[in-house]
């Protein structure tokens, strides 16, 4: 079975990572920022699995599964924070979070 070589995966993962990173940096809604972080983590997962296949070692897949669990943990905490803020009727916009200032 001839499929795309590793370069294709690396480029795809890199693009995905960049999109996610841009999302984190440019978006102001914390929910979308969290989603963008998920994209970043997923891009790393794609890379790990592709390399795992390239090297014929399964530890990359193991790594990827751990990352999924970690990503889920981050989401739990992140959503918990967002809900807590939502309850206090804080506008969900990171640029408008200006309680903390010098």
């Amino acid at each position: 079975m001839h499929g795309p070589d590793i370069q294709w995966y690396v480029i795809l993962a890199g693009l995905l990572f960049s999109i996610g990173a841009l999302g984190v940096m440019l978006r102001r809604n914390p929910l979308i920022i969290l989603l963008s972080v998920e994209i970043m983590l997923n891009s790393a997962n794609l890379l790990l699995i592709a390399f795992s296949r390239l090297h014929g070692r399964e530890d990359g897949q193991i790594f990827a599964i751990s990352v999924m669990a970690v990503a889920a943990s981050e989401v739990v905490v992140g959503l918990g924070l967002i809900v807590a803020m939502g309850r206090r009727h804080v506008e969900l916009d990171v640029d408008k979070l200006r309680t903390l200032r010098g």
Partner: protein
Amino acid sequence: MADFLVWVVWFVAAFACLASALAVVSFSNPFYSALSLIGNLASLAVLFLLLSGEFVAAGQLLVYGGAVMVMFLFVIAYLGDRTGESPWSGGPSWQIVGAVLAGGAILAEVCVVVGMQAGGFLTKPQHITRAFGSPEAIGRLFLTDHLIAFEVTSIVLLVAAVGGVVLGSHARKIEGDART
């Protein structure tokens, strides 16, 4: 012919993946973003399958599609729609578009350069057996070489669960805000 099919599947999945990721970061309504992320996850799962990661692909769909996304959608529903009906309301400003184009061009260039340097072919790995990426193989590794990682993953989840409980408790009326 099989090769051709693989390429087609790959391109479709990769395109879907990029498109949905772009959609996630560009929708202004988080509800649509979350939906797009599901598409992103699904297309990634397809790619994982192409890479003999059956177990990971299944995990991806179960953990993300099943748990994480549901949480997201619940939270979005709970908080209510605060950003208007249209997914494109407001629209990105010109500065942001410019920044995205400039930054994206640089990043894409880096990705391509780095990617082209990656050597090796995925095509003829004799050492990849049918068992590669299967639940048994993964499970065995998790309980032997990567036992520590396995245990720590569960600890991280536990910490996050405690955090979720703490953060989820109800707010109290308070008089003075000591740090703000």
